[in-house]
C-alpha cells in the first residue's frame, strides 16, 4: 500500500425524491449525507453498515454511475463529479464494479466467454485474436476452466459465476475495483474461495478495492481500513484492527457486540449491546446526531448538536460527542 491517494471524496451528498412511508407525500430522502473519504492506491477500504444505510448509493456515486447531488469526487487527480459522459468514458474503464448477485449481472443469453470479452470489444482492446487470448488469460487468472468459455451463465455455480464477474471486471486492467457485497450470496465455503482469490489478485495486480458488505467478519478479514456507515453518514473510520478491537462510536460498538460468535476459545465474549428500535427512514432524519434515538449513551446535546466526523488520532475518525477508547 502506498500513500498515493487514488480517490478522494469530499462532502458527497445524494438525495432521492421518494414517497415517505410516514407522510405518504413526495419527500427528499438523503441516502448519502455528506461523506468524505480517501482511498489509497493498493489498499482495501471496507464499508460496513446495515441495510439501507447508503453503501451501494455511495459506491455508485464514487464511480459516477449515479450523479452526485453535491460534493466532489477526485479520481487519479481528476474531478469526475462534474464531467460529461463522454469525458468520463476513458476513466470508467479504470473503475470497475463487482456485484452481489453474479447471476443478475450476467446476460443469460451470452456465453461466458462473450461476457468477459464484451468490455474488451467495446474498448477496442485489439484484434479478435488478441481479445480471445486475453479472455483465456483472464479465465486462468480467476481459476476457471478455459474449456468452459462457450457455456452459459446458468451452467455455473454461484461461486463460479462470481469468478466470471471478477474476470469481466479485471479485463481492462482497472486501478479501482468496487465490490458491492461480492460474497453475500455465496455459501461460506465458497465465499472463502472467492475472498482468497480477491486477495491473490490484489497482490498480483496491485489492485485497490472498495469493499462493501454487511458481514462484519468478512469486512475485517479483507480490509486495511474500515468505514462504518449509519443513515447515509460515515460515523467511524480507521485502521481495521484498531476499529474492531477498540471501537469509538457507540454504534460500531453495538454492531460488533451482537455478531454471533463461534465462541470456540475461552476468551470472554463481548458483552451484547442490543439496540432498541429500527433504523429511521432517511426521509425523516433525526435532529442532532442521526444515531441519538437508539444510542445507549445519548444526552440532550446529542439531540440538538450534530457531531462532525473528527480525526481523533492520525487516521482515526469518529462522529460522536462521547467517543469511547479515545484516550
Amino acid at each position, binding site marked *: 500500500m502506498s500513500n498515493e491517494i487514488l480517490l478522494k471524496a469530499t462532502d458527497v451528498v445524494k438525495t432521492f425524491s421518494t414517497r415517505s412511508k410516514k407522510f405518504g407525500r413526495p419527500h427528499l430522502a438523503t441516502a448519502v449525507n455528506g461523506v468524505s473519504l480517501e482511498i489509497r492506491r493498493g489498499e482495501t477500504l471496507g464499508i460496513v453498515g446495515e441495510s439501507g444505510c447508503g453503501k451501494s448509493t455511495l459506491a455508485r456515486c464514487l464511480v459516477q454511475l449515479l450523479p452526485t447531488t453535491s460534493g466532489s469526487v477526485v479520481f487519479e487527480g481528476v474531478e469526475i463529479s462534474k464531467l460529461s459522459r463522454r469525458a468520463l468514458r476513458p476513466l470508467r474503464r479504470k473503475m470497475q464494479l463487482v456485484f452481489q448477485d453474479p447471476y443478475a449481472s450476467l446476460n443469460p443469453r451470452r456465453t461466458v466467454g462473450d461476457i468477459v470479452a464484451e468490455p474488451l470489444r467495446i474498448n477496442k482492446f485489439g484484434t479478435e485474436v488478441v481479445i480471445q487470448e486475453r479472455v483465456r488469460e483472464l479465465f486462468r487468472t480467476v481459476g476457471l476452466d478455459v474449456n468452459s468459455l462457450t457455456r452459459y451463465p446458468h451452467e455455473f455455480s454461484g461461486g463460479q459465476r462470481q469468478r466470471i464477474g471478477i474476470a469481466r471486471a479485471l479485463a481492462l486492467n482497472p486501478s479501482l475495483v468496487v465490490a458491492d457485497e461480492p460474497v453475500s450470496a455465496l455459501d*461460506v465455503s465458497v465465499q472463502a474461495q472467492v475472498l482468497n482469490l480477491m486477495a491473490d489478485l490484489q497482490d498480483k495486480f496491485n489492485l485497490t478495492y472498495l469493499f462493501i458488505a454487511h458481514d462484519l467478519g468478512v469486512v475485517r478479514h479483507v480490509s486495511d481500513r474500515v468505514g462504518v456507515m449509519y443513515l447515509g453518514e460515515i460515523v467511524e473510520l480507521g485502521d481495521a484492527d484498531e476499529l474492531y478491537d477498540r471501537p469509538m462510536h457507540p454504534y460500531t460498538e453495538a454492531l460488533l457486540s451482537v455478531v454471533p460468535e*463461534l465462541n470456540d476459545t475461552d476468551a470472554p465474549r463481548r458483552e451484547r449491546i442490543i439496540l432498541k428500535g429500527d433504523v429511521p427512514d432517511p426521509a425523516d432524519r433525526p435532529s442532532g446526531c442521526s444515531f441519538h434515538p437508539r444510542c445507549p449513551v445519548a444526552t440532550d446535546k446529542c439531540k440538538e448538536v450534530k457531531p462532525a466526523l473528527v480525526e481523533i488520532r492520525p487516521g482515526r475518525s469518529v462522529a460522536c460527542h462521547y467517543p469511547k477508547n479515545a484516550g
Partner: protein
Amino acid sequence: MPESPVLKVSDLKVTFATRQGPLRAVDGLSFEVAPKEVVGIVGESGSGKSVSMYSMLGLVRDANVTITGSVEFQGREILGLSDKEMQPIRGGEIGMIFQDPMTALTPVYTVGWQIVEQLRTHTTMTKAQARERAIELLSEVGIPDPRKRIDHYPHEFSGGMRQRVVIAMALSCNPKLLIADEPTTALDVTTQAQILDLMVKLQDSYNSSIVIITHDMGVIAEMAHRVVVMYAGRPAEVGPEIDVVRNPRHPYTWGLLGAVPRIESRNDRLATIPGNAVSPLDIPEGCAFADRCEYRMDICTKRPQLKGANDHLDACWLSDEQRVAIRTKASS
C-alpha cells in the same frame, strides 16, 4: 435418565422424482429434540434443511415427492397424517417461523385479525378473549403500542417487526416445539440480535423446544444446545454444540468452521473446501463429501454410518488416531 424426546426423527428420506432422475433432497436424517432443548441444523444451501422440516410438517405439496422414515412428535407418528389430522398440530402444538415473515402473514388482513384467527382455530377463546391475548402477545414480543399496532397491516411494519409478529403468532398456542427456518437470515445484525434474544427469552418462559435452521455457524453457537451438521441431505455430524464447535470431528465441519471470517482476529487466508457442493441428483454411493475431502481413502466409496461416543456422532471413516494426527498438524 433423559426425558422422552419431544421430537424424534429417524432415517427421514425425501426424494423428488425429476426429469433428470431422482433428487435425494434428504437422505437419512435422524435426530432427537429433548424438552426445552434448542437443536440447531446447519448446512450450506441445498443441503436439505428446509425440505426436511417441511416434510415433517406435511408441507411438501409436490406430487413427485416420496417421503419415508419416521417422525414422532410427543411419541406419536406424524409422518403421513392427513391435512385434517395435522391441522391442530401445525400452528398449535408446533409453531413455525420462516425466513420471510410474509410466508406466514397475509398482506390483506391486519396482524391482529391473523393472530385472532390462529387463536380461534386452536383454542376455544371467544373473539374478545382472543383479541386481548393477541395484544398481550404483541407486547411480549416487543411491539411498541400493541393496542394500536394490532389493527395495522403487515406492510406497515419493518422487516424485524414483522418477524416479531410471526413469532407472536407462532407462540400464540403455547407450542411444545418451535421450528424456525432461517428466522434471522433476512435481517440486519442488530435486528437479528433483537430477534434471537427474544426467542431465547420466550423459550424460557414458554418452556418450548426449538429447532433452528440456519447456515450461520455463529447463530448455532449462540443459540443451540445441540447441532446437526448437514451435507447433501445427510447428517455429517451430530452432537452437543460446544463439542461440535470446539472439537469438530468431520472433515466437512472442519472446513465449514475454518472458512468463517472472524471479527475477533484476522488471519491471512481462510480455510476453504475445494470444489462445489455436490448435486443432489448425483450423490455418490459412499461418503457424500468424498469428492471434496482431502483425507479420502479407498473405503470412502462405502457409505459411513453416524457413530461415536458421548452423544457426539459423525459419519466419516477416519479413525480417532487419524483425526488426532490431522488436527494436531493443522493447528501447528
